[in-house]
């Protein structure tokens, strides 16, 4: 494969535990789908399952395996880089996306934590700019790191507040 776009620098990786978060979400989601597709077949056939009735479940399990592998690979690609004037966030392996936000443009820095993330002690940092398309999230930050980074970014963006 040809060389892909890249920005070199001292990238900060997120915690690899985030791969588990993604994996758990994947497993739950595809299990629900697989079971929901299998149970009607079971009921329609009066408990006498034909061989093809297991296909949806098998497909779901296959997708779970793929999803788990991908969540590990994807987690390795998520990172952020603090530069002099902007914050750079990258994610994606096949679909690569680099976003640069000047510090002064950050309007809000949110910290969110879902139930699965809480199990693994991780938090997500979400940046809101005036543009809805920015959509910048750094998931998988260990608890104290997230708060430190947020406080730091808020302080920096406050000192460089730049209107819209």
């Amino acid at each position, binding site marked *: 494969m040809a060389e*892909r776009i890249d920005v070199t620098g001292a990238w900060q990786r997120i915690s690899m535990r985030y791969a588990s978060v993604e994996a758990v979400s994947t497993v739950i989601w595809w299990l629900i789908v697989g079971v929901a597709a299998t149970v009607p077949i079971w009921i329609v056939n009066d408990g006498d399952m034909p061989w093809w009735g297991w296909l949806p479940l098998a497909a779901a399990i296959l997708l779970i395996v793929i999803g788990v592998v991908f969540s590990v690979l994807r987690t390795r690609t998520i990172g952020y880089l603090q530069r002099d004037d902007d914050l750079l966030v990258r994610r994606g392996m096949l*679909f*690569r996306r*680099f976003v640069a936000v*000047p510090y002064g443009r950050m309007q809000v820095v949110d910290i969110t934590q879902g139930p699965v993330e809480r199990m693994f002690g991780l938090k997500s940092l979400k940046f809101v700019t005036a*543009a*809805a398309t920015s959509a910048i999230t750094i998931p998988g930050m260990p608890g104290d790191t997230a708060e430190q980074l947020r406080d730091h970014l808020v302080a920096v963006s406050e000192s460089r507040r*730049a209107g*819209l």
Partner: protein
Amino acid sequence: MTDPRHPQGPPPGGPWQGMPPQGMSPQGTPPQPSQPQDARAKAAELVDGEWHQLHPASPLLRGGLALIIFVGILFSVFRDRLIVLFVPDEFGSDFDEDPFSDFIVTQLLWVILGMIGLVLLLMLLFWIGWRVHRFRITGDAVEVQQGIFVKKHRRAPLARIQGINIQKPWFARLLGACKFEIQQAGNDSNVDLNYLSSSVADALRYEILNRASGRSTADAQRLAAERQTAAGGVVNEFLHPDAELSRVAPGSLVRIPVGRIIASSVLDGWIVWAVLYLVGTLVVTFVFQQWWVLFSMVPAAIAFFAAGMRSLGAKLRYSIAATPDGIRLAYGLASTTTEILPPGRIFALQVKQPLLWRPFGWWQVTFTRAGKTSSDGSGSSGQSQQMANFLLPVGDLRDVRTVIGLLLPELAHSPLVDQGLFGQAPDAYVVSPPRARAFRWFSVRRNGFHVHPAAFLLRHGRIWRSLQLVPGARVQSVAMQQGPIYGLARLARVQFHVPGSVLSPSIGALDQQDAATLFEHAMRTVKVAIDTDASESWAASLSRNAVLETAPAVQDGLMPAPHPGRPQWQQEPPQWQHAPQHAPQLHRPAPQPPQQWQPPAQPPQQWQPPAQPPQQWQRPATDASWQPPAADERWQRPRDEQ
């Protein structure tokens, strides 16, 4: 043309009580001494920091109208019954029996009492709602309080005003009221003062913008005086309801003939589809003898007609002008809107040409702004919100240049605009590599970008031409993307994130090296542009003001012919080559064409602040569009202080 009924101004009272309605609408006659000053005095009264109330007709306009219509319908339904009730047995009683109205008749007393009670209650609620709906304008913010049961208090800082609209739906116009909307960034964050008296709205807008601009009082008075002497006089709104559309100084910078607007709308892809639909339906009808198909055309025709009228409504009588407080747009036929967009509140531009406009050389300029105009659902009685996103609904090349010059004076005379609209590969733009032909079949030599210190120019399309301009100081963030297929072809996409949903400027199918360089360079340009941007308190920035005050001159025939003979940009050798590696070149201000973008002196990986102070390449020396005019505030201020 002054109002004959009130030669000494509207009757005293609250500032909104200037009914019958009069626009604060100066025009070409010598100034009437009292009235504009009266309106100004009232506006000044409104901005004194105390709480004020809205136009007394507001509850009626906001929803009371529906109530009256409801009562009217009830009365017309039961008219026969009522007549019989009061005039028994005279005219017979031959209405048909229907159990619902029978029930109502037997319980008539209670029904009538209930209705009256309901109406009284609603009226009371509306009245109280009007009483508690108050606003005040302090030194740095506009505050609105409203709500009977649920209190709402909204405070909007003046520094963040994105624009001020004055809308006059035709019904409100009859009552001399108008909607006054202060736009803020963000969804549903506008401050609406619905409704205000038309007579003060214009003056109030100037007062608010004066405060937001950080202008000194002396300057504000000078400007107000200029506005009066340039025009002056108040017209009767019934006779000349739209004086403020056309006659308030300054005049429109572009003239768009009505015929051109209609023709362009017809040729716009949208109405072409309508005609195709019509033809298709007729063919089906007559070829297959399916006559019922004809009936399906009725709702479709109504929908097409309504949509067409609405889009025409926002284009007709369009005017755009430069004022010291920003760009002033006015449009509308029956319901009119005037809005002022202060400097730096336009986040991106798109100049595009639908295919069928091409023979005529017409272009359209749309823009995106922060914040959405909320259509307040309360009793607008079917009047659609007409918020144009057009800076120029239709115009020729000259108009396009004028409009661009208004927003980005640095680019007004630049060949970059011409190249962006018509140009192809060997020019100042960096275009897609030949291998991107699979993604850009026809436009592979056109699809490209250019980085000017003032703005990013993104050029698209050979059949449907368009050019996007994103001022560097307005970019919120920049993204670089590459999917798996682009990855195989070593291409990438760069996106510029701006507020608003009208435009999302981006350029795809770039060589990934070029994209990475653009990404790096964009952040540097944005940084410099942010640092030198001063649009938040725009009057404090002399250069911006100067540019705005010179802007009208751009139009009045002073625009130099762009191409004496051969286009300028063709005389220049193409400076961008697709070298395998980006050879390091010195970054220096190029004289002409202005600001050729060149690869940064250092590979982007080791990013360092530019070697030269950014101010040095901020304004090319040969750019004729920027000159400090005689009317510059710098020269005026000492005189004011004496």
